[in-house]
């Protein structure tokens, strides 16, 4: 009995009995597009399967215009991932996320990669559309702030993944690396202008689970990204995602014209002044909203964020030998309706600004304990006095 159950019992207290941690290869130039594999994994023996995941938990206290719902605790996500090397240059990777205590279970990524050449890889399955940087590089333990950036979750509806196929590749020479990604996938639907947010709201399409079975209108969503990086300077990415969101034809009947939507995103990250890390993303979104619909649903959106992270102490702290203490600041903005009122001729508002000073402590690279103050100003469509929200968030996020 002990022979059978002994390892299992022992395994409950020391994962290293079964698993070994797969070290990340830091010698290669990694880009945001590599984020899906650039994660700590655990490998069992010599099996070609690696496991991993991360957990986020936090608490928050917010007050909007002086009214607070008090202190609350959240488990925004528990994510499991598994990768397998099927054969040489054939890899499979999946990421399954349990959100809000298991209320939602999403397959965020489940793709097979076939490498024909470093410049020519085929990927198929549930892919994360490479628009901006955050959508692909969104793991909680990589960020020093409790909340995800507003523009990356409400304009780009991260995590935005769809069934599709495409190509990607990289070319590197000395300190330079250049990469591309190009995918065709299922995409958005008309919920983006027919939702209970009362504005053009791209995340509304995430509620359509059928997009993993069939396209809403038969027109593939196209996503292209190019990124270039110099080891000592920066990584810059330019991406575009475009398609049609409405059902213009049903059962052979033409219902409407094709109504396009397009996203263009810029992302950049760099380390300056030796160890000050900058990371930012900006997105513009364009949607063909029918003229006869209400202007609350805007045809243009834009927004972005800039994170500045400064380590202030590195080394041994509280017994952890490779710990880091950071201070950080996030500036973010999202405008959900760029344009003017037809009736008033005045600029439409419907935007939000936020300022988030933070402090984070990393006892190891895989774990972050973080706290931030958040100040947010939201202005409604009509440019009435902004509502002010402020409060604290505290939490941790860790790979396991």
């Amino acid at each position, binding site marked *: 009995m002990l022979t059978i159950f002994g390892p299992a019992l022992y395994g409950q207290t020391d994962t290293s009995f079964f698993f070994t941690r797969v070290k990340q290869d830091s010698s290669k130039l990694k880009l945001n597009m590599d984020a899906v594999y650039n994660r700590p994994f655990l490998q069992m023996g010599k099996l070609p399967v690696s496991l991993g995941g991360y957990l986020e938990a936090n608490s928050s*206290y917010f007050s909007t215009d002086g009214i607070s719902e008090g202190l609350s605790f959240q488990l925004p996500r528990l994510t499991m991932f598994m990768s397998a090397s099927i054969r040489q240059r054939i890899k499979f990777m999946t990421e399954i996320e349990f959100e809000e205590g298991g209320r939602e279970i999403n397959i965020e990524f489940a793709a097979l990669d076939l490498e024909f050449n470093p410049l020519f890889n085929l990927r198929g399955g549930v892919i994360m559309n490479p628009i901006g940087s955050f959508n692909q590089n969104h793991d909680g333990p990589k960020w020093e702030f409790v909340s995800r950036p507003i523009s990356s979750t409400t304009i780009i509806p991260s995590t935005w993944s769809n069934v599709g196929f495409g190509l990607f590749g990289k070319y590197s020479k000395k300190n330079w690396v250049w990469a591309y990604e190009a995918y065709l996938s299922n995409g958005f639907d008309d919920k983006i202008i027919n939702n209970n947010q009362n504005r053009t709201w791209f995340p509304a399409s995430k509620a359509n689970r059928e997009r993993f079975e069939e396209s809403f209108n038969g027109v593939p969503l196209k996503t292209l990204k190019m990124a270039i990086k110099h080891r000592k300077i920066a990584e810059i990415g330019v991406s575009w995602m475009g398609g049609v969101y409405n059902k213009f034809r049903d059962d052979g009947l033409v219902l409407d014209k094709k109504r396009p939507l397009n996203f263009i995103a810029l992302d950049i990250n760099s380390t300056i002044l030796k160890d000050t890390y900058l990371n930012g993303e900006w997105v513009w979104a364009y949607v063909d909203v029918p003229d006869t*619909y*209400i202007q609350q649903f805007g045809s243009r959106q834009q927004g972005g964020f800039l994170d500045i992270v400064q380590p202030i102490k590195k080394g041994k*702290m509280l017994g952890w030998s490779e710990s880091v203490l950071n201070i950080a600041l996030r500036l973010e903005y999202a405008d959900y309706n760029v344009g003017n009122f037809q009736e*008033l001729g005045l600029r439409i508002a419907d935007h939000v600004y936020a300022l988030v000073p933070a402090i984070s*402590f990393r006892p190891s690279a895989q774990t972050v304990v973080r706290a931030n*103050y958040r100040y947010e100003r939201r202005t409604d469509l*009509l440019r*009435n006095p902004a509502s002010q929200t402020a409060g604290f968030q505290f939490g941790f996020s860790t790979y396991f």
Partner: protein
Amino acid sequence: MNSRLLIFTILLEAILIISCERITPRVPADDQILDGPIEGLTSAEKTRFLAGDVAFNDEIFTSETGLGSVFVATSCGSCHAGDGKGTLFTTLTRFGQSDDTGNKFLHLGGPQLQNRAIPGYTPESIPAGATFSRFTPPANTGLGFIEMVTDADILAMADPSDADKDGISGVPNYGDLPSFLNPLPNAVPKNGRYIHRFGKKAAAYSLLHQTVNAYSQDIGISSSFAPFDVYSGLEIDPEISTLTINNVVFYLQTLKAPIQRDQNDPQVKQGKQTFIELGCESCHKQTLKTGPSQIFALSNKTFHAYTDLLLHEMGGGLDDGYTEGSAKTSEWRTPPLWGLGLSPNSQGGQYFLMHDGRARSIEQAIEMHGGEATGSKNRFKQLAQSEQADLIKFLKSL
């Protein structure tokens, strides 16, 4: 050293979190906002108020939940931000009636233009030959008090034949009751018609009447009270529950009255005196009182809405050629002035006054008064600049 720094940081964070109530936004003063319930509601009434608040301000209609197919707005809150006045963006257009014989364009989409449509549908346009008028959404506050003014009190303010020869001859708007409404116990009907009091032309009898019409005509939502599709005119199933309608009505009934600011400011006091001396109070009656109400907090209360709830002839400049009920095209119900100073908070920092938002300042609004109000307007124009400023400051304090 490193550990000390870390502990210091954690302690600092802890202190910040403990003191978070001090560095988060403060509650605005009660007199600076329009929303919030009247005083004296029971716990059960507060719960009902909150349910109505959610339905009014948070419920956004989509095509799945009944929006349209033609409509003006997607929610109640779209037109009444912060329970205040609306702007030209959500201005309603009514058409098809030019006298007291009724609307001749009901078969062509009247009385209200639905100028927006869900994708795949075509919005309405004003039919040829129909006169029309535009109505900016009013503030919602204090409506429960206005609803509870007795017919007898309204009639006591009326002077249809100008018996007192002051040039002011207010009349009530008498209208038919839709089948889903029962007259209030204190109603004083005339030839089978009842005194209406809500809306620019006083064409709505009660808040239930107003609410049912707004869901139907503004958002395209059918209810058990008005089970019709606004696009096709066909009878359809209710798209909103009767409970929700009743909760919204309760919310409107129990929204607090605007609270006057700077009452003791000498300029405001002087402005109030000028307001009375100019004769403005002949129509904008300062004080009214409620009769008995099932909501105890509304029963037998005195309040200061600055209206007489009567129709007055306002001259050719404000005659759009469109009317409702028994009102003439140049007659308008005296709008309550309470909350006037807070209007910019819901109108994008600006004023859009008079029935269609054409006045961009209080001064402009006064100068657009005609008809029965011509005398008061002329007296205002003859005031010294400082006296005008006092009056404006008083009006902004409301």
